[in-house]
């Protein structure tokens, strides 16, 4: 099918030279973030901010309407015993479940993110991916999380990867587009940087690390490289792009380190759910337990926090 409606390679950045990223240096910078000690008021503030940034996720082959309803219930009622909690940013589900989510979340200010484009592998034709996207948008998704074609990327077919993102973005209309790079399949940090630049130039509103379906999922290392790509793109064009690490962030302490990294790389403007998300499921309860511990001084048990 023709992509001639879209000005395809107008903004394709020069990817003939792979940008240089030094892995050892990245590891050292990450280690500095991890040695920050976030205590007291700054810890409570961070934990609440993290809650507000969570895309509460279920993406299983075995998902059903019942499962998704439970997830949405949890999104609405994180932990009623604690008042003044922020709500999560979004739920994230498969396109077939978007309708259920929309009904359950009616009247609540929680986004509905849907994966699309033959998630997680992305191994399908463009027309299938477009249909997948349109179905999710029509069902009520306010955000689309697409996957790039990693095979094409690794084979050097950057124009194809670029064109696909442009086409999906067009199919999204006003719906926000997150582009999943699947960093665990890209090999080195150089390639993560390259894929980030490509996705942003193709029109991504957010770049996202992973599908969460393979190991490794999100790491602080790939996230740092992506945040630096976002920063350089912002300097060059003035356009802000958001960031979503997804998968493997189940502990509040780790999420706080991500916030430190975000703050020291991009600064205050990105420190909101509008520009940063955590793709997670069990993270929410760990954050709640930490908040409760801060409030009471007592270490918590998982028995007291609902598992949905």
């Amino acid at each position, binding site marked *: 099918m023709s992509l001639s409606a879209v000005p395809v390679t107008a903004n394709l950045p020069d990817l003939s030279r792979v940008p240089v990223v030094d892995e*050892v*240096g990245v590891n*050292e910078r990450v280690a500095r973030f991890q*040695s920050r*000690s*976030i205590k007291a008021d700054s810890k409570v503030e*961070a934990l609440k901010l993290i809650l507000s940034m969570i895309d509460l996720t279920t993406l299983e082959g075995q998902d059903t309407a019942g499962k998704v309803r439970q997830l949405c219930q949890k999104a609405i009622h994180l932990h009623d015993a604690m008042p003044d909690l922020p709500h999560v940013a979004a739920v994230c589900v498969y396109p077939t479940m978007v309708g259920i989510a929309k009904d359950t979340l009616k009247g609540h200010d929680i986004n509905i993110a849907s994966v699309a484009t033959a998630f997680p592998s992305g191994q399908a034709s463009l027309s299938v991916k477009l249909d997948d996207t349109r179905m999710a948008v029509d069902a009520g998704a306010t955000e689309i999380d697409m996957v790039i074609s990693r095979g094409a990327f690794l084979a050097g077919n950057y124009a194809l990867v670029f064109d696909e993102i442009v086409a999906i973005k067009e199919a999204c209309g006003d719906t926000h587009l997150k582009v999943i790079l699947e960093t665990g399949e890209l090999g080195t940090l150089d390639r993560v940087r390259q894929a980030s630049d490509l996705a942003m130039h193709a029109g991504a509103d957010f770049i996202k690390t992973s599908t969460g379906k393979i190991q490794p999922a999100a790491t602080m290392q790939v996230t740092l490289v992506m945040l630096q790509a976002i920063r*350089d793109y912002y*300097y060059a064009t003035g356009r802000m792009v958001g960031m979503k690490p997804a998968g493997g962030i189940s502990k509040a302490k780790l999420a706080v380190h991500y916030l430190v990294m975000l703050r020291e790389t991009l600064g*205050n403007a990105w420190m909101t759910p509008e520009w940063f998300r955590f793709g997670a499921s069990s993270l929410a309860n760990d954050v709640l337990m930490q908040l409760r511990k801060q409030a009471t001084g007592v270490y918590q048990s998982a028995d007291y926090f609902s598992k949905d």
Partner: protein
Amino acid sequence: MAIPDNKLAFNDGWQYSPAPESIDHIKVNKKYELFIGGDFVAPVEGKYFDTINPATEEKLSSVGLASTADVDKAVKAARKAFGPWSRLKAAERGKYIYRIARMLQERSREFAAIESLDGGKPIRESRDVDIPLAAAHFFYYAGWADKLEYAFPGRSVRPLGVAGQIIPWNFPMLMASWKIAPALACGNTVVLKPAETTPLTALKLAEVIADAGLPPGVVNIITGAGDTGAAMVNHPDVDKVAFTGSTDVGRIIQKSLAGTNKKYTLELGGKAANIIFADAAIDQAVEGIVNGIFFNQGHVCCAGSRLLVQESVADEVVQKLKDRMETLIVGDPLDKNTDIGAINSPEQLATIESYLAIGQDEGGEMFQSSCPVPDQGYWCRPTIFTGVSQSNRVVQDEIFGPVLAIQTFRTFDEAVSKANNTPYGLSGGIWTDKGAKIFKMTQSIRAGVIWANTFNKFDPTSPFGGYKESGVGREGGLHGLDAYLKLEAQ
């Protein structure tokens, strides 16, 4: 990359709350005597001096002021201990030194806290770098004690005798380990003087040495200032002098030793060039700049205090550096989030501030980060100078503070020429993705330690020391044994 009007803002919104290291478990005596002959003994003339916390200007302790008579006592104790110590089975000497290493590891948090209190460096640095490295040095050299015959083909080795060692205030405990560990491993005995502003961790080390059961007199630790040091250097029964400090004092020491038979090693100042090529991993190179000049308050002899950046990426590098500087936290050394601690003394702060004035007077453009600093104590924000060249004093002189002089270059040869255009030759840094260029650069720079795509990395196995006016001799590694041995034909 276009330089943005789009700015990043780092200083509002979420801030880090204070995260103080708890110090209720540490023990600092109100008064310390001199450690001579295995005991803490009062100085002969009964004089003491204070050591203060440069972050609060509060007194921490009084320590003995060693007079010439005390120096003499210490050297005599070291001499008396030398015979039996050098005649011990080498493996047994090694086991004593292993004990010091292990005990340092066990008491590491206390040592780290005291190092930060006494000297001003952030607890994160003393906890994560200084003290672990110090323990590692003892561990490394302990293992050489009974293996010296493998380090010098064709030579048999003997210890020198009594070593007089004078160390600086920028890495007090680490410098003590760099001096004591190899000296003992090679069968020598030691008289060590810590810097007058940072005596405490050396005195705590004396406690470790006593608790580890080392024979009395093998290590003697005497506190004092310049006069004490001079008395050590000039003492006729010292066989070897080891000094780390400024080039000016190094000159005086070398002159004093002329005509004597004393062996000496000197580890002096530096003004290292940190060179960034256009094909470097820029973000990691910026971190390398920060590592090279801002951590430890720039109180580092091998600091990357001159940045040479290839002109085509200069604007990008400087912008990213300024962004990074805005995220550096200057403050209480005992706060776990502090990146840059207190300047070690009012004298050093005055020196730094005079250079800030000189730099501006000479036409340089100065930029400092905007972070808050506490009211009490000695502080300097991270600072850069642009618009300066080889002729500027801030480019030539060692400032020993968190102050970076930035110049651009166009070609490889120009970078080499500028890097070498200095009387110093301690260290250098090179940032490029191209391997061949790294090795050509390392061949060309006249410095004793060159970091490629990294900076300020130290390891007990890695020799360290300078060319030219940065000193003579090497510390660390196999090469570091040389300083403490007499090599004889077999």
